[in-house]
């Protein structure tokens, strides 16, 4: 260990190699049910060269690396080492916003940039980033994009990888590679000389001369590498920067709440709007999740939950640029007509919440403590992809499973997020629990395992398979697993990047 520590100090300096027991203990576990494992060291690179040197060193010493971008708390087990002797590569210090370009609506950021850091800076430029629902303040923007977190505006989900565009990665074999139109030295030709990876700032200056930017994500060549590092939990490469497609900051926005006793009615209505793209933010909550998003503590959450409708579709509409007010006005008029035909009502407030309150909550990163912790102090999520038309089946199935496990039905949180322009949707069940009550923890752990398995059997697609979902997901597709392993063998031949995760 001492030898490894000294070698890493040579790369990043003594102040960036940490081995004090408290810090190692911190990184050895998270808030999920993933078994803890203490890392050997924590190393904090300051730039891409450091990252590359660390990966090369790991290959030489056969040391597992666990990349971590976001700050605490973590909830999914992906940053907990699965192998002995792992070194945590904490990228949170690489937090530069490298570029923001309003004209082309693109930003380039390092992995340590958080949503709470980026959104205010983008706003100054007249932009914002499509965000997942209420990420914690310390959540890495790149982490969210790379892990294909669903964004709240489905009509901007041109693919499930949005808003991710080009990126720079240090692959598991230590090779640095850039993707999309930023591949190589900024000249995307198939015949160019060996790419010299000039610093990204210089590259972007050069690209202004040819009216290029960083939005074309495909390739280079005949494969889309950005897809191979998406939802990879750091197993394929360590990303050192990425470009992100941004939105125009709205000039006018209105939020409506559409209440219902059951989700089916709202899903039919949502499907209609998705089809014609008459929406911006579109999310479906049950009372438990909406109360938790709005409440500041357990008492308030309980009170809100009693007031709120059983189900609420949250619908944001915006005017962003020219004739912003006109856009909101025509959308509101048309959507009201559709709502009437669908037998639902478009409200600016429902008992317990106004549209403005909901907008204030969901359009910003979570305040502290993280919103899902506010009810009982702990929680476990189960999330997967399905189609919007099938989502109600899973709600029924999960409710039945929770009931069978004597889990309080009123605590079960449901969040349904249409994505990829409405062709699929993210369904997320949240099981709040008191982490200090061993019995409750045990019951939730059991329910989580059983429900995950049962929902998988019923068709839940764990496209981002964390923890126990990995075996369920990969066992259903043997050929994909085989090809994934072969690709992993190419990009990370010594399996130094987060071994033990996914099918690796």
């Amino acid at each position, binding site marked *: 260990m001492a030898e490894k520590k000294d070698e890493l100090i040579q790369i990043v300096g003594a102040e960036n190699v940490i081995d004090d027991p408290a810090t190692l203990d911190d990184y050895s576990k998270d808030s999920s049910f993933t078994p803890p494992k203490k890392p050997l060291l924590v190393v904090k690179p300051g730039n891409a060269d450091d990252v590359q040197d660390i990966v090369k060193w790991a290959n030489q010493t056969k040391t597992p690396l666990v990349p971590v971008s976001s700050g605490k708390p973590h909830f999914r087990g992906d940053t907990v080492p699965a192998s002995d002797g792992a070194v945590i590569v904490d990228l949170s210090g690489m937090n530069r916003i490298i570029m923001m370009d309003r*004209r*082309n609506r693109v930003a380039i950021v390092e992995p340590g940039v958080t949503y709470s850091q980026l959104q205010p800076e983008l706003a100054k430029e007249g932009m914002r980033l499509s965000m997942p629902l209420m990420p914690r303040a310390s959540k890495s923007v790149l982490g969210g994009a790379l892990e294909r977190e669903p964004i709240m505006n489905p009509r*901007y989900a*041109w693919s*499930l990888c949005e808003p991710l565009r080009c990126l720079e990665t240090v692959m598991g074999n230590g090779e640095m590679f850039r993707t999309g*139109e930023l591949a*190589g030295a900024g*000249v995307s*030709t*198939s*015949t160019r000389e060996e790419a010299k990876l000039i610093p990204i700032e210089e590259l972007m200056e050069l690209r202004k001369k*040819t009216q290029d930017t960083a*939005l*074309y994500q*495909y*390739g*280079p*060549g*005949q*494969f*889309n*590498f*950005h*897809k191979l590092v*998406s*939802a*990879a*939990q750091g197993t394929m490469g360590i990303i050192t920067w990425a470009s992100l497609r941004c939105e125009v900051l709205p000039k006018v926005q209105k939020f409506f709440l559409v209440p219902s006793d059951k989700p089916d009615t709202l899903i039919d209505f949502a*499907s209609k709007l*998705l*089809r*014609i793209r*008459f929406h911006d933010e579109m999310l479906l909550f049950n009372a438990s999740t909406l109360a938790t998003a709005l409440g500041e503590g357990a008492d308030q959450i309980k009170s809100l939950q009693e007031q709120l409708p059983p189900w609420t579709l949250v619908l944001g509409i915006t005017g*962003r*640029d*020219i*004739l912003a007010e*006109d856009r909101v006005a*025509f959308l509101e008029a*048309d959507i009201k007509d559709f709502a009437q035909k669908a037998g639902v009502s478009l409200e600016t407030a429902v008992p317990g919440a106004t549209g403005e309150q909901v907008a204030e909550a969901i359009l910003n990163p979570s305040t502290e403590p993280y919103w899902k912790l506010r009810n009982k102090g702990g929680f476990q999520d189960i999330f997967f*992809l*399905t*189609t919007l038309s099938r989502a109600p089946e899973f709600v029924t199935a999960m409710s039945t499973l929770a009931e069978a496990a004597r889990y309080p039905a009123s605590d079960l949180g449901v969040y349904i997020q249409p994505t*990829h322009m409405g*062709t*699929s949707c993210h369904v997320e069940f949240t099981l709040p629990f008191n982490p200090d009550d061993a019995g409750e923890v045990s019951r939730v752990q059991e329910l989580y395992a059983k429900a995950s398995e049962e929902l998988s059997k019923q068709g839940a*697609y764990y*496209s981002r*398979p964390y923890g126990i979902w990995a075996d369920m*997901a990969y066992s259903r*597709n043997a*050929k*994909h697993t085989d*090809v*994934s392993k*072969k*690709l992993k063998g*190419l990009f990370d031949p010594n399996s130094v990047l987060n071994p033990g995760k*996914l*099918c690796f």
Partner: protein
Amino acid sequence: MALSSEVYEALENIVGPDNITEEPATLDSYAYQWMAELVTNVTDGGKFFDRAEAVLMPGSAEDVQAIVKACNQHKLRFHVFSTGWGPWAASPAEGQILLDLRRMDKIIEIDEQNMFAVVEPYVVAAQLQAEAMKVGLNNHISGAGAGTSVLANACCFQGGGPDVIYFASPQDSILSIEWVTPEGDILQTGSLGSGLGWFCAEGPGPSTQGIIRGSLGGAGGWGVVTKIAIRLVHWPGPATLPIEGTVPSYQAALPEDQFKAAFPAFSDWQDFSDAIYRIYDSEIGYIAHRQFVMWGDELQAAFLNIVTDPTRQLCDLEELLEKPEIQKLTEEMQRNFQLIMVGMTPRDLEYQKKVLDQILKETGGWNISFVEKPDVQRYVLLFMLRLCFKNLNFTATGGFIDTYNSVATPDVWASGEIQAGKKLLKKYAGRIADAGDQAMGPIGGQGGGGVTGWEDFVFYDPFDPDSSKAAAEVSDEGDKLKAVQGRPPGGMLLGLARATHADQEARAQKLSKSPEYNWQRKIKETLDPNGVGSGNYFWGADTSKK
């Protein structure tokens, strides 16, 4: 090198005697492709690329799988195409067999509620569109036209087009894929592989879909995609396009309160660029493309008159060009593009029209009044919504390629590149059919905008050796001029045609310094260990082994 009887029989047993041939005339019909006369190192200026050893027409994924396994067993290389438009459909080298997927032409499913279709390789865009419109949906149509394969455009080649600004890049619209790997295994990506239906493209975990296509697909050299699910978009028009008129003036009368064609035009290129940014930001438009300039900015007005007037013929061109009103229209249209606004509701269209008016006011632009004529509206709407006029690319001279292309941010329109491209074409005037600025391309080359660009069309006479030579020269000169600026090559079509039919070893040496092609070599060695895929999945030579 003919196939041995053992190999031929093995293949015949898979597809049946009616679906395999090694008859020379039939094989030559596959070798006869557009641009052949330009790839002189292969064709010596002739009209035929290399002849395949046999052509097979599999009828199912199982047939394809069996053929690919047989190819692995016999170390036989195969090349595959769907609708096969262009030199990348021909066998890239001798000694290979061709798989013609025309029997796999089924629309398997249209999921109306979740907005996607599942199709086989030979389903063409117009076929899917006709079925999708019946349930109020529509599909992307590649710039290559309505007669080309939906699947190939999305997975196997380039596939962009005029509607991408609203419909998204075709590769972003791919959901699950069924792919016969070069070893003959069937890989189902995304949700399909888990037996859960076609709705999701990605995962589980890292997406293996990422190796099936990148900026470009494998162009017939990288396994065989046998089915895909493709995302559809809403269609607020009638269940059937109401097509009327006579060739070439086919038209479609669509509800005026939901469909509107506009030709925004500008007095300088900076205004043109600024307007594109404003369109991106305000999110209007169903289709946005600089289309009719493909005939050249000097001829587009006259050509539009011919194609929208059934009493006119191509021979009227010179007469029309003398008319003052055509000359005025030519001047007005110099810097214009086509914007098709489709209102999901009448209020939506009214809003989009107001936004366009505002953009034109801000940028000093105008809408060409000619397009307000009912006949022209109907012609342009049909042209742009169905893209069923691709024969027009060949109308002027019988052959076309491109040069001096640019794909970048909208500012590229104001960078002087249009004028430089025009100057380049003028240099070759007489040997090619120069008609001024021939920069045709998408206003929004990605969903929501982002990149834009053009192809500078080069019309040449494929039966005139000097004209063909000039076409190749102008393409090469465009490449050189672009290289000086640090831009990608300008002649995409000829460049790809040459690369497709290049000597593979020489090409591999050339690509050996490009990291992506070294990764592609490693991926190919891993997933195609017998090297039976044709050369169209490119790779760089392993210089360490040298």
